[in-house]
């Protein structure tokens, strides 16, 4: 019993229960959802959102936003694809170049935010627009159309596909390697947050940057590192898209930055920073993936798609909140017992933690 209560007290339990509720719901209403194949498709779909969402979640815990996280996936793929297609060099060279490019963008985001003191929302909004424009402009310049050329014939394709877009059958289902990568990234992020020194710093810079600085946390380096983590994961998903689909549409990726943020927030990350959890973010991505595909499996009228999505998301968040309040975890002390909760008043920060 105590163990059970302990479990209930973990911050991600609420999100987990919510995910289960949504999942069981679709099992009940959508017959075609009841198959391993469907489950694997949902997992795959969740992983493509979830990988970047892990980084975005860490960044948000660290108190910053990255609106360029969606388009950078496409930029990453385009850099690799066009560089190699134009010069005919091995794709591995392009992939590394693209990695360097993405890390540079992440560094620039972070550096500008810290250097100018302009909110990251604005800085990365700028990057978002610039990348979006450059994706289209450069692609048209190089290939003359709005999509990159098929690169499957270029050297290195097979090995890169193995790394980024491999899949294997499991019964009648297909398991994509991104799901495994996703799991890995989540575990690393969770370890980092809970057990590594850097995790402590991430919570601190998001919870109160000035206090963190006062006790000697390297705020600037931590935040820049977070931005670079996001763009690294963006690069990773970009590589997957490129090596799974061979070509990329220059206009794609827009709007995904939003999905990452949604996944993080549904998973219990505080928008104002300082609170959250990597498993929560992963569950948030899974909830989003389940819902958006579940509606399709259930065959509901697509005109109402968004309405269903909205209702299901609210439902998930409500379940999450309710479970958290039930469990009297430390996290729940400061929660919404008497709305608007005045607890943690000393912090000068809204006391909503869920």
């Amino acid at each position, binding site marked *: 019993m105590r163990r059970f209560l302990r479990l209930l007290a973990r911050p991600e339990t609420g999100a987990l229960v919510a995910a289960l509720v949504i999942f069981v719901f679709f099992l009940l209403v959508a017959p*075609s959802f009841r198959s391993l194949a469907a489950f694997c498709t949902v997992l795959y779909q969740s992983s*493509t959102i979830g990988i970047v969402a892990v980084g975005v979640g860490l960044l948000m815990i660290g108190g910053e936003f990255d609106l360029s996280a969606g388009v950078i996936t496409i930029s990453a793929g385009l850099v690799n694809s066009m560089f190699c297609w134009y010069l005919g060099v091995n794709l591995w060279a392009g992939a590394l170049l693209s990695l360097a490019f993405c890390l540079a963008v992440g560094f620039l985001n972070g550096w500008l935010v810290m250097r100018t003191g302009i909110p990251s929302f604005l800085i990365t909004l700028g990057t978002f627009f610039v990348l979006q424009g450059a994706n289209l402009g450069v692609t048209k310049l190089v290939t003359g159309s709005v999509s990159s050329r098929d690169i499957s014939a270029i050297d290195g394709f097979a090995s890169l596909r193995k790394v980024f877009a491999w899949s294997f059958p499991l019964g009648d289902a297909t398991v994509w390697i991104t799901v495994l990568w996703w799991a890995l990234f989540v575990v690393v992020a969770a370890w980092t947050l809970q057990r590594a020194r850097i995790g402590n710093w991430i919570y601190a810079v998001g919870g109160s940057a000035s206090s963190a600085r006062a006790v000697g946390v390297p705020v600037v380096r931590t935040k820049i590192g977070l931005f670079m983590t996001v763009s690294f994961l963006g690069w990773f998903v970009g590589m997957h898209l490129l090596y799974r689909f*061979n070509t990329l*549409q220059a206009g*794609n990726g827009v709007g995904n930055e939003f999905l990452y943020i949604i996944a993080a927030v549904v998973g219990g990350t505080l928008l104002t920073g300082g609170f959250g959890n990597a498993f929560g973010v992963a569950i948030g991505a899974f909830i989003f993936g389940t819902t958006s595909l579940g509606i399709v499996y259930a065959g509901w009228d697509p005109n109402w798609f968004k309405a269903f999505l909205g209702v299901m998301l609210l439902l998930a968040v409500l379940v999450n909140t309710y479970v958290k309040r039930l469990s009297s975890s430390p996290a729940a002390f400061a929660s919404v017992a008497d709305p608007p909760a005045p607890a943690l008043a000393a912090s000068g920060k809204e006391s909503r933690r869920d």
Partner: protein
Amino acid sequence: KDDTKTDSDSGGGNAAGSSGYTVAFVTHETPGDAFWDKVRAGAEQAAKDTGVSLKYSNDPDATKQAQLIQSAVDAKVNGIATTLVTPDALAGAVKSATTAGIPVVGLNAGIDQYQQLGALMYFGSDESLAGTSLGKRIAGQGVKHPLCVIHQTGSVSLEARCAGVKSAVPGTENIQVNGADDSAVTTTLQAKLAQDKSIDYIVALNAQVALDAINAKQQASSQAKLATFDLNTDIAKKIKDGSVEFAIDQQPYVQGYMSVTSLYLYLKNGNDIGGGKPVLTGPSFVDSANIEKILPFTEKNTR
């Protein structure tokens, strides 16, 4: 074989699913687009007429569209009709359908690649062909500098239309507008018309943008003429009163109707429509000459 028949569809014609077939219909529609609304209307009518139960889904993002096809395969539907606007991106998903023994029919886009992808039949026009024929027609009127209005950034099909126009009229210029906001479309066009007075023609790529273009022309007191892709009641009226010269129509209703019907016939009788060749539903011109005949159909959402 049929385990998904439980889904019910609204009545009319044969009982939904009475034929025992389920067809998934996957498009790259951006929600709320009038063009796709007609494609869907056609598909639904065909489903009713043939007693097929229809599962419509859509996503403008190619990778997510591939995902939708994949989930149709997971759901073990009997046939899939899909647009092939980004053939390379969809190849994998289509292949997994064909290897699962599910027949695939292409529509609307992908005329050159559908066979290679393994689709059985194709109903639609060709975006760049449509663009070219529009371009040729206005080039014939001596147009030098048309403006092609792209209302969705980076859309492959819209870019193909404009490229088609440009291939016939080299002076074609593209512009991007925020298609989700009529006032933004209007002001952007207004600004463009003021910036470049030599623009003598506007090519809108959907009906609503054409209506906004009429507004913008008035505001900028521009003499440029206007043509549009796709049709709706309002545009039909504008063609009648002359503010729109003509519309180029690829009969979306037919694309939807035929895709479903052909799958039904294939599943039931093994029929093949088009004899291994694509079936063209357009482009056809709607102008003052034939508008009287077409106007009533636009009101019924069938043209």
